[in-house]
């Protein structure tokens, strides 16, 4: 009956898939595994206490919060908006791609500007729609819907693959603390270095894909060629 000990894993998978309370699932899985694995109540409490204390590095985000809110208070988001706002005359696809590059660079330093709610909606989407209008077109509803999807996709890809480049990120610390009891000691800086090519390819591929897709969409909706759009934008700039 040694297979019974796997019940804890089943609890995690089924619990998350059914969208039950995440903390409840993990706690339940821990209790079930400990009891079926003959750790007993004592063993459960001791293992829980020991591992929690030795894994305290996972809570590093708490100390980082000490400055996160105050950075916001001192205009971090506004400064980021000004930075991306310098991309004048760019096509919507290029604006989204540039946002991805900026998001990646800052994610590597664990700096965030508010995600879809705080940055894409109030800053990136108005810039992208503004670029359609600057090229002399009326924003088409279905086209803008695609741009929204791409802007959110860029946000997700750049954040996911960018944050693993930060040396103190919880994902990497979780990997380190998961490997430690299995007998493998890994170094946080090394983990970040390994991810550099992955992050560059992820953001590069996604940015290129969205630029190409956007060019195609503009041709379909407005009969634009990318060159024509750029020259219109440049002409506008010159006015």
């Amino acid at each position, binding site marked *: 009956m040694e*297979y019974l*000990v*796997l019940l804890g894993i089943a609890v*995690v*998978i089924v619990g998350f*898939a059914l*969208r039950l*309370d995440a*903390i409840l699932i993990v*706690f339940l899985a*821990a209790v079930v*595994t*400990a009891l079926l*694995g003959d750790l007993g109540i*004592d*063993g459960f*409490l001791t*293992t829980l*206490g*020991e*591992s*929690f204390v030795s894994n*305290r590095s996972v*809570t*590093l985000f*708490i*100390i*980082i*919060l000490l*400055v*996160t*809110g105050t950075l916001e*208070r*001192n*205009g*971090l988001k*506004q*400064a980021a908006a*000004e930075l991306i706002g310098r991309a004048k005359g760019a096509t919507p696809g290029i604006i989204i791609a540039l946002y991805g590059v900026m998001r990646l660079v800052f994610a590597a330093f664990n*700096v965030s500007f508010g995600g879809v*709610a705080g940055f894409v909606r109030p800053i990136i989407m108005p810039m992208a729609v503004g670029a359609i209008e600057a090229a002399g077109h009326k924003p088409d509803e279905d086209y803008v819907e*695609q741009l*929204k*999807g791409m802007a*959110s*996709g860029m946000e*997700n*890809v750049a954040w996911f*693959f960018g944050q693993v480049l930060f*040396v103190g990120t*919880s994902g*990497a610390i979780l*990997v380190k603390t*998961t490997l430690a009891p*299995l007998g*493998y000691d*890994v*170094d946080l800086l090394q983990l970040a270095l390994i*991810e550099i090519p992955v992050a560059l390819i*992820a953001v590069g591929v996604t940015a290129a894909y969205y630029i190409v897709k956007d060019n195609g969409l503009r041709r379909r909706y407005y009969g634009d060629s990318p060159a024509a759009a750029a020259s219109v934008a440049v002409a506008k700039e010159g006015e």
Partner: protein
Amino acid sequence: MAFFMDPDILLGDKLMEVFYMFMGFMSVYAGVRNLRDKSNPSRWGTFVFWTLLGVVLAFGRWIPAMIDGVLIVVMVLPAIFRRVAKGSSAEPGEAEVEANFRRIGSKVFVPALAIGVFAIAGALIPSVGALAGCCIGVFVSALILWALNHANRPMVFLDDSERLLSAMGPLSMLPMLLASLGAIFDAAGVGDVIAGIVGGIIPQGNLTVGIIVFALGMMLFTMIMGNAFAAITVMTVGIGAPFVLSQGANPAVVGILALTCGYCGTLLTPMAANFNIVPVAMLEMKDRMGVIKNQVLPALVMIVVQIVYMLVAC
């Protein structure tokens, strides 16, 4: 005190204990502030959660492990019964932020980037380490913020962090609890049992098959569970260790790439609602799958890239 005097313990580890005490203080502060906040619907539950977390963070090393375990169980209970909430807290007003931005401008990037710079610097000094470096960076960042704007007093930092901590709520402890779950899996021998079962299916000794199964498994499990952190805890013990790492694969490469293989799954699943479904609502899109559809190609390219990377590097 003996711990801090012991010359055999790395400077970075000693520093970290000091920083854990500070994090504990921040957590206790959040607990006490919420207790006194009449607008919080669950004052006591919130107080118990953050205060006990703070105690374990600050003094866990010196408390017997079993008592730590009891404290954590008691801490988790209000979270399970949804008795951890946030009260009212003063968000920075638009006028204040705008005025600060006009005064400071893009110089605000300096304190923002300082944390990462110090984390790297710490990582390069073996006796300090990345974690302590990162924490030092936080305080340097706070000092720069104060230098740029003297209105940034200690209480402003403390209250701003309390606001964010309370807003994140108990779910912010999920990675922590998952890490503990991993340790319990290990203590209960879960890995050995899985290795026994899967060994009958996957040919042992075939590293290539092991890597491909692990990478695709991470992606699929994350799609089902909607959370790469939960998936990696289960999959590393079950597949990663017995079928990939035991065959001499590089644990750093396999370990961290497995996580980002999981992120490919996150890009593909409506289960990761925060990333893929909430934006649809926030941007008022018509197609519920509109975000995911734009992520299919990047996710599939990246899973292939990462499998190739693991095969080449191991």
